[in-house]
């Protein structure tokens, strides 16, 4: 039987153990791919913004298309008020996208397949959005939990459900990304294992599945980054334009 499909998610130290107080902050393979993703993003967008030509070259076009794509996504979901948060959402989208995409290369490590990473991102978004909401609307932000047009009898129930739904946002946001990434990679590993175990005669069927799954996973990698960013925009929209 092939190796355990979960071993690909194992984190191990690269280089010496580094400790600050009681905390272990050693450089690991996860850190390596975070650094690689960051550097790749910075490299591409630096090249894409370096030359300023009226007719863009390929890399400039890529950078500008990404810019307009994210810009349009934000203005569509959160309106013009969300403009100050453009940089953050752009970085978030690109970071998640590149981490997902680097994970698609064989023998690499998928940063976003770790719940702690996605949860930290989601929790940061959740806390920031809540703070922004309270700054913008004061205690009026609590009106978010009281939908208009609800019968008074149902109101206590609705408010409780709204609060639970609000509080589960970071969890749903992080688990969605993490679970998608983990499930996809596990499945690919399992099918890859089948290819080996079924050998030269029977291995072709799982191989075709593996190829098809690679395509699907690349789609999922993009889609999940997009969903992560767009949900952030929607949460931000709630905080900026209180609709209830």
């Amino acid at each position, binding site marked *: 039987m092939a190796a355990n499909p979960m*071993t690909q998610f194992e984190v191990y130290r690269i280089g010496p153990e580094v400790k600050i107080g009681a905390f272990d902050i050693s450089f690991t393979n996860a850190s390596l791919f975070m650094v690689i993703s960051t550097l790749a993003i910075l490299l591409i967008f630096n090249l894409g913004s370096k030359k*300023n030509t009226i007719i863009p070259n390929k890399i400039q076009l890529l950078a500008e298309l990404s810019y307009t794509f994210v810009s349009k996504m934000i203005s569509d979901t959160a309106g013009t008020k969300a403009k100050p948060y453009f940089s*953050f959402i752009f970085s978030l989208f690109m970071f998640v996208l590149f981490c997902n995409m680097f994970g698609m290369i064989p023998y690499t490590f998928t940063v976003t397949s770790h719940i702690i990473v996605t949860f930290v991102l989601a929790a940061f978004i959740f806390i920031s959005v809540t703070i922004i909401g309270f700054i913008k609307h004061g205690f009026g932000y609590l009106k978010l939990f009281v939908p208009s047009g609800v019968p008074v009898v149902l109101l206590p129930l609705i408010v409780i459900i709204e609060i639970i739904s609000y509080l589960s946002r970071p969890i749903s946001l992080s688990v969605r990304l993490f679970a998608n990434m983990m499930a996809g990679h596990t499945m690919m590993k399992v099918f890859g294992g089948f290819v080996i175990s079924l050998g030269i005669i029977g291995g072709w069927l799982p191989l075709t599945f593996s190829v098809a799954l690679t395509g699907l996973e690349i789609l999922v990698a993009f889609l999940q980054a997009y969903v992560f960013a767009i949900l952030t925009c929607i949460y931000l929209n709630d905080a900026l334009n209180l609709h209830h």
Partner: protein
Amino acid sequence: MIKKIFFQLVFFNFFLLRDVFAAESGGMPQLNPEFWISQIFWLTLTFGTLYIILSKLILPKISANLELRKSQIQENIEAAEKQRKESEIKLKEYDEIILKSRLKANDIFKDSREKVIKDINIKKEALDKQIDEEIKKVEKEINQLKETSPEKINKIAIEISSDILKKLIGADVNNSSISAIVNDLLKRNGNKYYGN
């Protein structure tokens, strides 16, 4: 809503499962807290760096590039529009000039034609008058001639008749009888000789 609650349950299940999986070799490495702090630290570091560099250095540049291109294109479009308008105005002016000159030419043509027609008319009238006068004069003369000629002819006829009779008979014939005969003939056949 149900989906969210479901995810929540799944999430808490993971926490519960951690103890189960931790006992096994393998399990879910994601739930092994050994490197959590390290991952949080490196995530903060890398993502923070990414955010700061993107927001301070790269994104403003891209934004400026896009703005510049937009304004440049806008400017070009505006310039083209301006030139188009100018050329339209020029074209209109040109058309107007042509129209004006055509009208002018028409006017000139009409004027000269009228003048010529007037001249012709005047000349024609004068000519007509002259011709009329001439005709009247000639008619008068003819009338005079008409009136006087029978008498003269009578006279000549009488003289010739008397001369012929003298030669034939050898004696003078009374002029008054001859004239009576001639007058009688004239009365009968005069119309044959003088038209009228």
